[in-house]
């Protein structure tokens, strides 16, 4: 099953240490089509992460509403999974137990969740690492574990908050290619925050550009490149044009 999100006039306002109010986001309005891959780009501190937290139901908007298939999101939903900027693994759990955590919390038996997690590990290149601890893994591997922990929930909506931000360029390219192929199988609705324009264009159907704080959407750029996309497509003229448009919009943000 796939889902669509509707964000209507959403704002987030924080209370500043001096008691004043600090507008962090919005108002933001957009809708997503089912199975759409959307990336959010914009200057640091523009409220991208806040928007993802709102979509995940970890935080409630100050104003406006978020609808998942027409129903308001006010708390975390089993249909929505979020992946954070750093791997955010539990260092005392083995890799397989980290991946299986969502199933464990959902009350699924040890046998069944181990079977499910074990089946997922090869797709992430992690099969030999099942009994290892996160402290024994490299940054790229840890991020794959985090991705596994998100995918095992079989979510309809995937929220990715700069998932590859801490990785080196080569690992980053590799992991995002893996993400692309996994997404091609499942076709969840994806909202991903990134700072990398090429990564944004290469992965998505639509790129939303946000302004400085309080972040608003200043451009909604479609990426009509055919899928499946190979990495070489980033050198094509059409890709260059789209990336250029995204960059121009970020500059005027």
């Amino acid at each position, binding site marked *: 099953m796939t889902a669509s999100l509707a964000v209507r006039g959403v704002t987030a306002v924080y209370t500043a240490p001096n008691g004043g109010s600090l507008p962090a986001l919005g108002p933001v309005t957009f809708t997503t089509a089912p199975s759409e891959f959307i990336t959010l780009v914009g200057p640091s501190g523009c409220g991208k992460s806040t928007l993802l937290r709102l979509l995940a139901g970890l935080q409630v908007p100050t104003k406006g509403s978020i609808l998942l298939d027409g129903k308001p999101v006010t708390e975390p939903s089993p249909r929505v999974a979020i992946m954070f900027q*750093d791997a955010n693994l539990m*260092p*005392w759990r083995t890799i397989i137990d980290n991946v299986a955590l*969502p199933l464990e*919390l959902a009350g699924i038996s040890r046998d069944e969740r181990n079977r499910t997690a074990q089946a997922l590990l090869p797709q992430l290149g992690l099969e030999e690492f099942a009994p290892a601890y*996160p402290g024994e893994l490299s940054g790229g591997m840890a991020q794959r574990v985090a991705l596994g922990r998100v995918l095992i929930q079989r979510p309809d909506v995937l929220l990715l908050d700069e998932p590859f931000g801490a990785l080196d360029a080569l690992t980053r390219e590799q992991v995002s290619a893996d993400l692309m192929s996994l997404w091609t199988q499942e076709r969840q609705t994806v909202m991903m925050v990134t700072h990398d324009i090429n990564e944004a264009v290469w992965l998505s159907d639509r790129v939303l550009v946000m302004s400085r704080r309080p972040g608003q959407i200043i451009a909604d750029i479609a990426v009509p490149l055919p899928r499946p996309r190979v990495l070489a497509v980033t050198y094509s003229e059409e890709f260059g044009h789209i990336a250029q448009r995204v960059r121009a919009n970020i500059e005027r943000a």
Partner: protein
Amino acid sequence: MQITMLSRQVNLRMPSSRALAPYLGLLVLLLLWELITRLKIYPEFIIPPPRAVFDTFVQTLLDGRLWTHTVTTVGQMGIGLFLGLVAGVALGYLIAKNHMLEQMLSPIIVAIQSTPVVAYAPLLVIWFGTGPTSKIVTCMLTVFFPMLTNTVVGIRSVPPSLRDLMHSLRATRWQMFTRLEVPAAMPILLGGLKLSATLSVIGVVVGEFVSANAGLGYLVKLARDSYNTPLVMVAVLMLALIARLMYGAVALLEHRLLAWQSRSRRQNSL
């Protein structure tokens, strides 16, 4: 070829000599003790020879006295340690979760914690009588504070990002406690337990010093009053042994529960 064999021999000998080192230290100490008594630098009632202490040990062991007093002390210590742990962790958890409670209780806690237990132990005897209860309470109080502090620090050390993760996975309060807070705080909790386990011996002895008719602390006091120095030393050595065993038990627990830490560290240092 010869060099390889030589180095292999050295490698084989190295760990065993290192394992023996603590016993070697003990042996030197014992010899030094024997030497001092042989030279008669101090009268025997101040420093009795090792032989006299050993004889007293065997004698009190055979007539059952040592055993009875040890059982009394260890029993009171066990109950006090258990109660202090439960109370310290429970209140520590509540304080870590509730700022209002922290502000309400922290002046009282700091006041009691900074007062030496020896100073108010007589008060506890007045309140709880001269029987085992007052010793259990002094033990409980010495264990309670380090456990409380470490629980507060431990629970506060849980990374907010992991809390977010658990929320996003719709964890229940109980799951939040058992799957996140307890394991995340475990290294700090075990640090508190290590401290508490050794302090628990002191707690009981303080209680027994103030007033008692059984226990190793009582035995120390009784032997001192009759200038039976070998017996004082036997009781003190027994207490040291108990404290050491407690420490060892927690270290073993730590080794088992925190295996992931040593594995993670080893890899990171490579």
